[in-house]
């Protein structure tokens, strides 16, 4: 089974959702209260094999039971048993090329045949499950819903480890017709003499095989045993043990892993697995393993131990993201109950490795390059001090490197996915032309004045004391003599006729140049230094390496001057940082 479309009306925080789903491994991300979990809950309610789901007024949008809850899940890869004409074979839909639903026809392939299962709950709070048809609808039984193979991996999984009613363990056991569970229960009651549970031990052994690849360490050997905590005797109290230890005493992560492994093993038609906060209780290495294991694969690769056809999970974990393709990320947004789910495009893949945390933040600053990223990291430290310890992170912001020319495209795509976006970069004619369009999309655009680039802005605006510190840092980084020699050579080339460049050229000579009293000359010197700092900006593409075009270098540079910015508050440098600060703190 695979969900191809989901629509939700009036369920909890969701007034409307209409989502065409084209993936199989679906990681829902989005800020808190973006209704991610509600989406999982909605799917669970529709596909749940429980006949007695309990609803209350709090399940209605805005707690108003007048708004009937209606959730429709359209699934493909229908189990043969449901396809029978006297079951749901008369209720098959096709997903048409124009994303509409209609009767299947000559061209409809098996993969595009859908069942549309609708759950409605009105003010009577009685849930009703129906398969939608082309001229009527029909009730769909709990037993048939069980065939849909949905399993929700819960935080509370302890029951999964018992042979109680409808547990995965029981279902694994029932595949083996030779095991009589009722008899086992009685056997248990008959006092568990020497070794009376051999049949169940066989099942436990099987389970051990399923769970091993998930990185669960079985200390001893899985076996059946009576719950040491139980006061009554019955099959529900027969539970899975690892040696003498009941499995439910395992850590949360292991329990979830075992539970998922068992669920998967019982779903021959391809399970739909739902997991909320997949990272819950797992160390990164086991988490990665889990993410890999729940990744669905095509039916033809299915083994006897069942397979997963589609996974929906929510996550706030960078470790999870790093295991995923970016197209497996779906960002959930909810504005006034209107929930949308949008899939990331392939082009964001590079950020999955470099800045995965960005996808998990509501706000993103797209920087032109590593220099800008580093500078903002430095200035963030100042802001944290000035804003009672709250910095960009506290305001839900992540910085990403827009890699120059692609910066605006990234910004626009991220904006369309619902992120708040600020662009921070060099000013040039191209960017200035785009500014209007970007601002129309509610993207904040911060560019240096007068089409300056960042190194230029820094060299022109940083107060002298701080600027000297910047150079002292750069000497440390690049070697004082090397850097000074290179500066002298290049300055000679550029300004040989107007400035005095002694040989040897010392640190103090450089500082003298920086303090050149003639304003016009001083500006020329600093401009020339800027082109040396970033050779790619000089006319005819200068040679040499940029001084701090690396996040860490730029951050260190930033550290040298951010505390002195108040001395030059009217400078463009201070002004623009001020504007960014305002945006960060939402004023």
């Amino acid at each position: 089974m695979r969900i191809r479309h989901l629509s939700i009306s009036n369920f909890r925080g969701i007034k409307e959702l209409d989502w065409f789903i084209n993936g199989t491994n679906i990681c829902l991300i989005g800020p808190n209260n973006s209704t991610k979990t509600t989406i999982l809950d909605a799917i669970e309610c529709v596909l749940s094999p429980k006949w007695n789901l309990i609803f209350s007024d709090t399940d209605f949008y805005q707690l108003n039971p007048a708004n009937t809850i209606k959730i429709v899940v359209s699934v493909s890869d229908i189990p043969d048993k449901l396809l029978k004409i006297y079951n749901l074979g008369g209720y098959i839909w096709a997903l048409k090329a124009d994303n509409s639903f209609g009767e299947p026809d000559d061209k409809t392939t098996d993969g595009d045949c859908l069942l549309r299962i609708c759950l409605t709950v009105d003010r009577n709070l009685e849930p009703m499950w129906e398969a939608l048809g082309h001229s009527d609808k029909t009730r769909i039984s709990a037993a048939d819903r069980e065939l849909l193979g949905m399993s929700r991996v819960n935080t509370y999984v302890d029951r999964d480890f018992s042979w109680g009613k409808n547990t995965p363990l029981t279902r694994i056991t029932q595949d083996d017709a030779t095991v009589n569970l009722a008899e086992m229960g009685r056997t248990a009651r008959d006092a568990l003499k020497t070794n009376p549970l051999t049949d169940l031990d066989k099942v436990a052994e099987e389970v051990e095989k399923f769970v091993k690849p998930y990185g669960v360490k079985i200390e001893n050997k899985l076996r059946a045993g009576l719950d040491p905590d139980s006061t009554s005797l019955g099959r529900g109290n027969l539970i899975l043990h690892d040696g003498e230890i009941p499995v439910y005493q395992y850590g949360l992560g292991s329990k979830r892993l075992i539970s998922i492994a068992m669920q998967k093993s019982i779903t021959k038609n391809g399970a739909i697995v739902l997991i909320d906060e997949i990272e819950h209780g797992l160390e990164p290495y086991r988490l990665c393993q889990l993410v890999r294991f729940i990744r669905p694969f095509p039916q033809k690769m299915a083994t006897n131990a069942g397979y997963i056809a589609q996974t929906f999970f929510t996550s706030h974990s960078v470790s999870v993201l790093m295991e995923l393709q970016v197209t497996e990320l779906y960002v959930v947004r909810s504005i006034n109950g209107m929930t949308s789910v949008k899939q990331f495009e392939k082009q964001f893949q590079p950020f999955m490795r470099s800045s995965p945390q960005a996808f998990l933040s509501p706000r993103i600053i797209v920087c032109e390059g590593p220099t800008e990223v580093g500078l903002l990291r430095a200035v963030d430290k100042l802001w944290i001090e000035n804003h009672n310890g709250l910095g960009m992170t506290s305001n839900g912001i992540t910085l990403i490197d827009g890699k120059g020319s692609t910066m605006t495209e990234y910004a626009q795509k991220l904006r369309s996915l619902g992120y708040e976006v600020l662009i921070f970069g060099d000013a040039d004619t191209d960017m200035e032309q785009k500014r209007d369009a970007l601002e129309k999309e509610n993207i904040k655009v911060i560019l240096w004045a007068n089409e300056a680039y960042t190194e230029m802005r820094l060299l022109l605006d940083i107060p002298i004391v701080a600027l000297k510190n910047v150079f002292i840092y750069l000497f440390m980084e690049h070697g004082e003599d090397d850097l000074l020699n290179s500066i002298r050579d290049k300055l000679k080339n550029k300004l040989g006729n107007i400035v005095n460049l002694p040989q040897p050229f010392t640190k103090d000579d450089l500082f003298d140049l920086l303090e050149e009293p003639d304003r016009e000359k001083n500006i020329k010197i600093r401009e020339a230094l800027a082109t040396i700092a970033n050779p790619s900006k000089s006319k005819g593409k200068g040679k040499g390496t940029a001084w701090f075009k690396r996040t860490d270098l730029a951050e260190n540079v930033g550290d040298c001057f951010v505390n002195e910015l108040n001395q030059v508050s009217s400078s463009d440098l201070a002004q623009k940082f001020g504007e960014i600060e305002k945006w960060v703190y939402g004023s």
Partner: protein
Amino acid sequence: MSDAVKELLQHDHASLVAPAGYGKTETIAQFVAQSEGKQLVLTHTHAGVQSLAKRFKKYSVNSSKFELDTISGWALRMANYYPQSTAFTKGIPSGDDWPVIVSGVANLLKFPFIKRVISQSYTGVIVDEYQDCNLGHHSLILALAEVLPCRVVGDPLQGIYSFAKGEKLVDWDIDVKSYFTSISELTIPYRWQNTNLRLGGWLKNVREKIYAEQTFDLPSSVVNHVVLSDSSSRATCYRLMRTQNDTVVAIHPELKHANSCHTLASQLIGNYQSIEEVDAKELQKHAKKFDNATGNQRAVVFIDFASDCMTIVSSELRTIRANFENSKSQTLVKKNKHIIDLLSDVAQTGDISKIKNSLKAMRHIVNSKNESPSLYRADLFDSMMDALTLFESGNYASLVEAAWNARQRQKHIGRREYTRIVSRTLLIKGLEYQHAILLDADKFDSKNLYVALTRGSTSLTIISKEPRLTPK
């Protein structure tokens, strides 16, 4: 297991000729019981469905082994599932719709998705009374046969359905034999084995005579021959009532119109029931009149309806009806005041429970000879009561719709059974009675004659001018 069952199991696409009374239904039941998985069992009439259902029950064929329906009923279900593909807009199908539905479903069956559905649903299809398939049905079955193993069973000599719109029936020798492997005919006349062996043997000969269009005698050792006269029908029917609880069918040669049957049943004052065809056109007719009626007309509709179902009402309530019809005062009428009261309520309010009460009340009026009405079309009367009950539930937009659904329900729960009936061949084909009476036997054509002759298992009474019959 009989040879026929074995052969059916062996051949994926087989046809079997089964003369009437030769254990055809048993053969189908055993085939279904022996075959793997679930068979789709189709036939033409609801009577046929019920007779198969009965036989399946008798042989304890597990209900998971078959799905039983009429070809039209099954097609209608498919058409309702996929109205666009079959070009059938949902509603109550009328006569003209059926060919559209059947060909629409034949077309639907070409789609890959539905082929998968069908092959998942059934392991095979077996069609009874195949001789009654028209070419539309035939192409629907051939479409099914593309997906499923398919067996057809029937008797070319019993192809009595005549179709108004020039739809041709399958030609057994051409259409059936070209697609299905013919397996050996059934040869043992089971129907008569325990009841009247001699009759069974005689009918076997007669079958050959009819095939060969040869005149045949009515030997008194086998057949009760009665010479046709004005009173012979009634007298014979009364005489056969002496068999007490035995089932008796009096078969009228009339093909299309049932009036002669109703008249005879009326003359027999309810001792024989005249039954309705499946869609009960008369029920629809009265229901439609009611739907269109207002005020007093509503009372008139139900006096007319009751008059069609039972004796005495028509004459006894003539004045009351005329007064309603002409909106005249009923104060001068002395008798049946309670009927007037009830019907006045009906006229004013159209209240359904009042209609039911007035129909019930009409059954118990008495005439000057202290006689009460005899119900001779109980099938029609009871169906109207069912329809009114459904309509009362408020789930139907009109009485016509409720009436249609009332008849649909009967398809599933089975037709009401009456011990003695007067009928045309069409309504009793495939059914078995203990005693059969052929009224005016000279008038049957050869196929209808064969069907009529083979209905009775214990005795056969033939009323005719001549002591021999000539197939035509």
